[in-house]
Structures are given as structure tokens and as C-alpha cells.
């Protein structure tokens, strides 16, 4: 871990976090898996906007939910305007 660059000599050993919590995969918290129906998705980005995990990617018309992080909270399932996100039990897939 790096030390603060401009610390005065003799100060205690100050360390700085230089790694990301993105190393911590939280997808195994999930019991229910949100599945987007691409045929009914309007690309409104509401699921991206409200995701507490910031794990919905914007790169395509149909957003991509990163399942290695999704905790299965269901906010996107509740908020999707055309109701095109459905929960499926994890053990069924």
C-alpha cells in the first residue's frame, strides 16, 4: 500500500486505500435473478438510474445487468415502466 507522498518525516505510517471494492463480487448474495425481456424493453434506462449497486451497464439498447454484482434487491423489477424485468429463482437457472 502506498504512503501519503507529502507526509512529514517522522509522522506515523499513513496508508492510502488504492484498491477498489469492485474486487468484492456480491452476486452470490442473490436469491432471485432479474431477467430483462429484450422484446419489451424500451431502453428507458430506469433500471440503470435506480440501481443501488451501480451494476447495470448502459452500453446497449437493452441494458446489461452485471450478475457478478447484482444482489437481487428487485428495485429494477418494481420500477421498470413496461414491467419487462422478471425475477427467476437462482436455482432454476
Amino acid at each position: 500500500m502506498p504512503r501519503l507522498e507529502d507526509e512529514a518525516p517522522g509522522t506515523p505510517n499513513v496508508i492510502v486505500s488504492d484498491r477498489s471494492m469492485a474486487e468484492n463480487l456480491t452476486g452470490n448474495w442473490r436469491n432471485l435473478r432479474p431477467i430483462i425481456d429484450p422484446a419489451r424493453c424500451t431502453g428507458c434506462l430506469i433500471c440503470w438510474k435506480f440501481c443501488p449497486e451501480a451494476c447495470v451497464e448502459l452500453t446497449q439498447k437493452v441494458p446489461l445487468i452485471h450478475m457478478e454484482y447484482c444482489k437481487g434487491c428487485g428495485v429494477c423489477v418494481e420500477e421498470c415502466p413496461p414491467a419487462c424485468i422478471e425475477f427467476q429463482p437462482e436455482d432454476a437457472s
Partner: protein
Amino acid sequence: MKPSIPAQETMTSGHVACQGCGSTISMRYALKGLGTNTVVVMPACCWTILAGAAPQSSLGVPILHSPFAAAAATACGVKAGLEAKGDKETQVMAWAGDGGTFDIGIQALSGAAERDEDIIYVCYDNEAYMNTGIQRSSATPAGAWTTTTPAQGGSPRPKKDLDAILRAHAIPYLATATPAYAEDMVRKFAKARRIRGFRFIHIYAPCPPGWKYDPGLTIELSRLSVQTGIFPLYEVEDGRLKINVPTPKRKPVGDFLRPQARFKRLSPEDEAAIQRETDRRWQALSQGS
């Protein structure tokens, strides 16, 4: 389609918040509004944990953890240090829960507000000490169950009107925000960044385990808190109050209360009393006070 709020993410996935956490959505929006030239100061609160254990961090900006009572004082010191180094641009944001704001941090908060220190102080209010196990705080509303008010009737005292206390300090900017109104929250943080002096933003952050509801309902409850008038969205700039989301036809408070098991012991009389108090507060607010 273009996103309605900035696409850049400064909060990473992989943080350890509970499913459906309202305070993580709020942090996402706050940093979208403020940008990355920001330092965050956190006292003891849920976010002490969510920010990650060293050497990992869940935010792409520097974080300094402070003692429980000292978020505002620590933020003032960081700001003074930056200015001493010639940095007038970096924003310093204190980010505290309701326990660290309404209760334990109020002395340092009042001092910094009174001195009009050039910091942004944010209280994400989930109405109890959620991180330590849902103990009552002075932000807990009357009638709510907590682990320290378990009996029939819940918390016996009304929620402290902290916004009125802050307004009494004549600060340049005060705003309320909640995650269901994402664009409103991002706009308020972007606006706060452009104002000099003490800025206070009060965020209403639904908490699934503490309020006892299905985590998928976080945004819906946040929205209902505004639509019922339980948590009106407004801002006060140099003493002038502006309501941001007018709700001429407010929904009954029961729509907000009933999905939450923390309120399941409310009697019809209790609910009627909450409705009357909400109506009274709305009346006062719509008259600018």
C-alpha cells in the same frame, strides 16, 4: 436514449450495502452532481462500512473517516488544509447518517453552520441507528418500531425538525432530496457545488431492514414519502423557500406507512394523528415557513 443524470459512476459495484439500500443510491447521485474533485468526510454511520475496508474503497474520491461527533469539524479542517495548500476548487462533503447529525454530531454541525464554513454537509436520514441494529435516534418518527422502542406505540416522541434548526442558522443553501427524484437530487448537488459557504442537504433514505419492507420497494417508498407530504422536497436559498415537487393532491399517509412493518402497530387514531401533523407541516411549508 440519453440518460437523465450523468453517466459517470464514482461509486463502484461490490460495496457491502444491504439489498435495496437507499443511501447507496443517494451516494451515486451525490457524486454525479458534485463530480470527482471532491473529498468525503464520514463519521460513524452505515457508510463507514460501505466505503470499504482498507486497502479497498468503494468511492473514486478520497474518504476521511472521523469520530462520530466530529464530521462537520473534520470537514472544516480538511477544507482549511486544502486552502492552505492553495486549493480553492476541491469540495469537501461531510456525509453522515441521522445519528451522526440529529444526535451525536449536532454540536459540530451547528458550529460549522454558524461560522458559515465553506463545506457541504449531507445527512442521509434513515430514521434510526441502522448500522448498529436499528436503535432509535431523534430522527425516528413517532410510532415507529425500533429495537429500543419495541413496545406497543413505538417511538414516543416526534421526529426532530432538524431542517428548521439549520434554517435558523441563516445558511446560504439548504435542500431536501430523496432517491426517487434522481434528477432533482443530482441538480441540487450540482447547484450546491456552485454556492460558497455552508450548504446542507437532507436526504431521506429508505432502509429495507430498518423500516421492514421488501427491498424492491425502496424507490416506491421514497416516492410515496414525497407524494404523501411526509418528506416534502424543497430548497431554501438565502432564506427564500421554494417547493420543488408541488403535490396539491397529496396521497393519504397510510400509503407510505402501511408497506413498512415498523409501523404495523399503529392504531387508526395514530395514523390520523400522523395525517394531521403532516397536513399542518405542509400548510406551514406552502406558506414559506
